[in-house]
């Protein structure tokens, strides 16, 4: 009986979180751990016990999966009643009988849960160990679709969703490197508009144009993309008219969804765009119902303007001013690639004529964005040097600080930026050169990433083919079965390589990013 008591004693504890979990949508961390411990114990007990207690759950298992969901809420209140009854034994039953009843119910419950777990494990992707096992009623943290390309179930869901929204699905191009087979790889020569009618009926033409400009690389850079996106949304709102019997706040959000899917198909959304869209959706859903359509549209456009002005334009100015304090006389500043914010900072600093400094522009293939930075800086009269990224260890001894731009700042303090940034940060650390990252707060993202593999973007591999004297060595890469081309767009710099992050809220160390995120979410 003592042995039986132990599972019996452990049983109510296991049973108690279960109904609590059934009724509340989230299981807390402790409850999850508890459940896992219980399961381990039960498995051990099962192996030791060869009595009939082991068999009824097994017999019960085949029948249980048949009605896991329906039966679950039913046992829950029954179980709750059972527990209450157990604590205050009614006169009708003896203690032993009650305990046996309870035990049987708990075994059945446990068997149900295990069967369900087995089901869910089969359904969940085996290739994603990071995917948290979905508890039946808990909040599921889903991986975004654009990093699940090698999972056919997720892709089918995506295809169905796109079909429903009447957005064409873009086909992947070329064989991908195995490590990155979970990401999309598109070809620039096959734009999405190939599959769309002219004039486009479902997607607003301004959005089609924007998507095309994204996919062809005409609009590049986190800030530029976000600004263009918001402008196009303003136009969408202007051209929108509420259908009868619909509310603007709900209908507009659902109208925006196909457009956002289309833009995602053209090019995966950046963190800044994601944050802007979240903000916009929240604004739309918070619109008071009393407003007329015209006023509501006006108000929305004003909020978008305000967001643009505050988070992007004014933030850029604030960052430029803070960064100016960090630039000393006779400084040698290293910049990488083309960041609109860094360019603006340097141009403003030069215009203030207080400090004399020179700039070393580091560039890398295949984008060669550094040339654009070079052009803009030289036009303003700043003294510049241009090197390729393989030369940084030669120039770093004379560099006094490194100024980098960011695509997004992740919640653990890592900086997500153009590929090559982490290289520069690493080598700078080796040479003891301070690394400053300029980033507006609207690019702060709640994602956590420690490596550059999980969530990245693959660009067109044909960009890597270079024509020299009329010959393209890599031209026939598709025919060669063992050759894969990889054109990564982003990489993640760990927070210990970055010395300071200059934001519009001030100059903060990398580890304070979660604090800022928390403050931001409290504000909203």
């Amino acid at each position, binding site marked *: 009986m003592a042995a039986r008591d132990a599972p019996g004693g452990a049983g109510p504890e296991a049973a108690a979180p279960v109904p609590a979990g059934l009724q509340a949508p989230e299981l807390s961390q402790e409850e999850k751990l508890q459940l896992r411990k219980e399961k381990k114990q039960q498995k051990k007990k099962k192996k030791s016990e060869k009595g009939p207690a082991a068999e009824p759950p097994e017999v019960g298992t085949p029948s249980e999966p048949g009605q896991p969901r329906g039966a679950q809420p039913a046992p829950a209140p029954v179980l709750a009643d059972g527990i209450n009854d157990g604590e205050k034994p009614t006169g009708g039953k003896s203690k032993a009988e009650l305990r046996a009843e309870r035990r049987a119910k708990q075994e059945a419950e446990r068997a149900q849960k295990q069967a369900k777990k087995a089901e869910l494990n089969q359904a969940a992707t085996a290739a994603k160990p990071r995917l948290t096992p979905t508890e039946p009623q808990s909040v599921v943290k889903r991986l975004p679709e654009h990093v699940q390309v090698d999972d056919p179930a997720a892709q089918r869901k995506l295809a169905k969703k796109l079909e429903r929204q009447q957005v064409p699905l873009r086909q992947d191009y070329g064989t991908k490197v195995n490590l990155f087979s979970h990401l999309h790889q598109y070809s620039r020569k096959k734009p999405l*508009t190939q599959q769309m009618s*002219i*004039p486009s009926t479902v997607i607003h*033409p301004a959005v089609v144009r924007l998507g095309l400009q994204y996919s062809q690389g005409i609009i590049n850079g986190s800030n530029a993309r976000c*600004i*263009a996106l918001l402008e196009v949304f303003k*136009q969408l709102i202007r051209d929108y008219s509420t259908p009868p019997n619909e509310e603007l706040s709900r209908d507009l959000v659902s109208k925006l969804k196909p457009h956002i899917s289309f833009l995602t198909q053209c090019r995966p959304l950046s963190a800044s765009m994601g944050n802007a869209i979240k903000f916009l959706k929240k604004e739309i859903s918070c619109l008071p119902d009393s407003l007329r359509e015209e006023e509501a549209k006006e108000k929305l456009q004003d909020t978008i303007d305000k967001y643009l002005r505050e988070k992007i334009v004014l933030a850029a100015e604030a960052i430029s001013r803070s960064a100016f304090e960090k630039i000393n006389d006779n400084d040698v500043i290293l910049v990488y690639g083309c960041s609109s914010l860094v360019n603006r900072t340097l141009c403003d600093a030069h215009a203030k004529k207080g400090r004399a400094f020179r700039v070393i522009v580091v560039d890398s293939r295949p984008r060669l964005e550094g040339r*654009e930075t070079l052009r803009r800086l030289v036009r303003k009269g700043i003294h510049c040097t241009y090197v390729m990224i393989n030369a940084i260890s030669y120039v770093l001894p004379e560099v006094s600080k490194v100024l980098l731009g960011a695509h997004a700042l992740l919640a653990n303090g890592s900086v997500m930026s153009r590929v090559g940034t982490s290289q520069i940060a690493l080598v700078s650390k080796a040479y003891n050169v301070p690394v400053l990252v300029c980033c507006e707060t609207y690019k702060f993202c709640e994602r956590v990433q420690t490596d550059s593999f999980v969530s990245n973007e693959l660009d067109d591999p044909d960009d890597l083919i270079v024509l020299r004297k009329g010959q393209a060595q890599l031209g026939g890469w598709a025919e060669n079965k063992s050759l894969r081309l990889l054109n990564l767009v982003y990489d993640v710099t760990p927070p210990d390589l970055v010395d300071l992050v200059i934001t519009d809220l001030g100059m903060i160390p990398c580890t304070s990013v979660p604090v800022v995120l928390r403050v931001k979410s409290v504000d909203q």
Partner: protein
Amino acid sequence: QTDVLVLSCDLITDVDLYKVVDLFRTHDATLSMLMKKTHEPTEVVPGQKGKKKPVEQRDFIGVDDTGKRLLFMANEADLDEELVIKRSILQKHPRMHIRTGLMDAHLYCLKKYVVDFLVENRTITSLRSELIPHLVRRQFSSPSVQQGLDNKEEDQKKKEQASLDIYSFIKEDNSLLKPAPDNSCWNDHRGDMNETLHEGKVRCYVHIMKEGLCYRVNNLGLYIEANRQVPKLLFHLGLEEPLVHGSAQITDKGMVGSDSIIGSSTQVGEKTSIKRSIVGSMCTIKDKVKITNCIIMNSVTIEEGCCLQGSVICHNAVIEKGADIKDCLIGSDQRLEARGK
């Protein structure tokens, strides 16, 4: 309210339209058009006496290195002896390819303000020969020149007409893309200190088709050529209809060549050979007729023993027995007597 796509109705093409429109969309162009490399016509065109002079009809088209941006367009008829190219074009686009073998497909994507400009400007009568070259020329001239002329008081009427500058129609509030290019790091040219796209507001783009079907059947030769290509192309276009229509009554199936098209309800007699021809519907072709390389329209009656080569026979014509027709154009409702030549 929006941008327009202008098509001429005598265009037969299988171009991917999205390519032309994408050029328009991507670069926010004022004009985007379609062109095709032409082939010299080889076959003799019926009904034409004397050789055509193809030289006068040539167009000089200048495109930049990428083959997308249209820099220069002039018709040979407008030029005397020299080709004049503005220096500003060469400064901005050092490499320009000039081509003469291109045929304009008359398919244009135009921005809305061009339509407004057309409405205001009464002097422009033809799209192709006036508006398009005007737009191409204005790409590289600055708007300020026109502004100066605006202020003059004398000859106001004349100036009014001249000052209808396309630039004045470009609305400034259409600044959707204005902040974005400042932040975006894309540039269409290298080795230059200028801003992307040279800050030109008027931009013309052209999509040049290399292969594929594109015919403008605005003259006879092209019409015949197009008709001849149709049997081969119907296959490509995926049309399921057989070349010989189901309701046509043909007694001798073997005599009809595989690249001929016979319309519906046509009756073809015995021993009639039809090669490389297109026969319309409701025709009656009697026995012992030889038809080669012809285009026969609907409701034509051809009596016995005729021999037709390289001709175009229009609707409702009647050709009597024994006629021998070579390289002719026969109009509608004509009646040719027997044994004619």
